[in-house]
């Protein structure tokens, strides 16, 4: 089955599924995978911290990196994922041209993700982050293969 993850959402895929998300600009795409349980999830989070809009976070925790990443881990554990086997990858977190701090939402998204992972003793296995591009992610759950598309270019993550 093909699952499409919209902005501020997360989808879980099982063996045979492909999980897709489009137009990752400054948003974080976070992919978590257990190769033995063959289960994976893809989060498309827009903003770093849920405290910016607690009401929204209540209705939709996947809009924010802090609440979304925690939720994704729990969903994977609920479906048989084991922490020792998890493969974590990140994409997105892009930024516009220039050096305007206020508009570095992508960088802030990335920082919050790294802090969360570090606290939990998890390392990113791969990442395609930063830059001024918009990215599309295809996550194949059977193999764990992740393809990142930017314009015409395709690369495996």
């Amino acid at each position, binding site marked *: 089955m093909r699952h*499409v993850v*919209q*902005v*501020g*959402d997360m989808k879980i895929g099982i063996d045979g599924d492909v999980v897709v998300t*489009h*137009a*990752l*600009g*400054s*948003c974080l795409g976070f992919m978590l995978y257990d190769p033995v349980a063959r289960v994976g999830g893809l989060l498309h989070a*827009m*903003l*770093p911290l849920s405290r*910016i*809009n607690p009401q*929204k976070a209540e209705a939709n925790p996947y*809009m924010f990196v802090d609440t979304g990443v925690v939720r994704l881990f729990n969903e994977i554990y609920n479906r048989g994922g084991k922490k020792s086997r998890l493969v974590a990858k990140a994409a997105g977190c*892009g*930024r*516009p*041209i*220039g050096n*305007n*701090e*206020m*508009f570095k*939402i*992508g960088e802030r998204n990335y920082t919050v993700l790294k802090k969360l992972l570090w606290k939990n003793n998890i390392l990113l296995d791969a990442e395609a982050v930063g830059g*001024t*591009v*918009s990215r599309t992610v295809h996550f194949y759950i059977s193999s764990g293969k992740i393809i990142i598309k*930017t*314009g015409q270019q395709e690369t495996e993550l």
Partner: protein
Amino acid sequence: MKPGRMDKIISDVKSFPSMSNMPVKILKLIDDPQSSAAKIEELLRYDPGITANILKLTNSAYFGLSSRVGSVRQAIVLLGWRHLGKLVVASCVNAILDKPVPGYDLPAGELWRHSIAVSVAAELLAKELGISANDEIFTAALLHDLGKLVLANYVREDLQAIETAAGEGIPFHAAERRVLGTDHAEIGARLLKSWSFPLSLVKAVRWHHDPDAAKEPRAITDLVHVANMLCLMIGIGVGREGLRYEPSQAAAKRLGLKTRQLEFVASQTLQWANELSEVFEAGQANVGSPPATGAE
């Protein structure tokens, strides 16, 4: 620059299928203290399509009305004059902005979704900043990328040269200008000027990527600039250019914008943008339905 191309682009601007002159007429009526709901209704009577769209929008969850509105007059009474202009303009331009935009790699519907999202974000920013929102802000935001429709084929033709220029790290509209002699912001402004839109709206469109280059700073221009950048960043209608534009430090400063406010507006924009942009696709039965998320 290829010889004669600028002339060709200008002639394309002149022959661009004009949208109905309804928006300009209605905006004038709204500004006129002498006008009445009856006058507006009369003007709209000749355009049932636009009337239907206005009612659909009025009944969308965005406006949160508890009872269903069945006439333009009722819509004016319930929503007030303030909202009418933007309803009319959105209803008129939906068909134009809904098309695919080659060159910029925007599939059908994406420019419309982007335009609506920038309008919503600009209004939310104005509200956060305590700037009194008016129809003009919404309308300028809605039309800011209109020029892309004229420039699309030229961009596609010279994509290689434009990409090469942009590859040096200059913003995408500057790359358009270097190769084509103009950019989509200027073309959009020309179109709107020729249709007699108010000057402040024309200026906001003209400088939406470069608000510091405007002769005099205006909040409307800064708001459209920030809202556009934000919507691209959160992936609404982001095309071939990706995020290759530069947010102005000075614009954010002029507005008194804080990071917290920018992020808060981002968190509010998506839902309303989806809600409004889908009103036209969903037809009648969109009243009070939960907003769908994102587009594919």
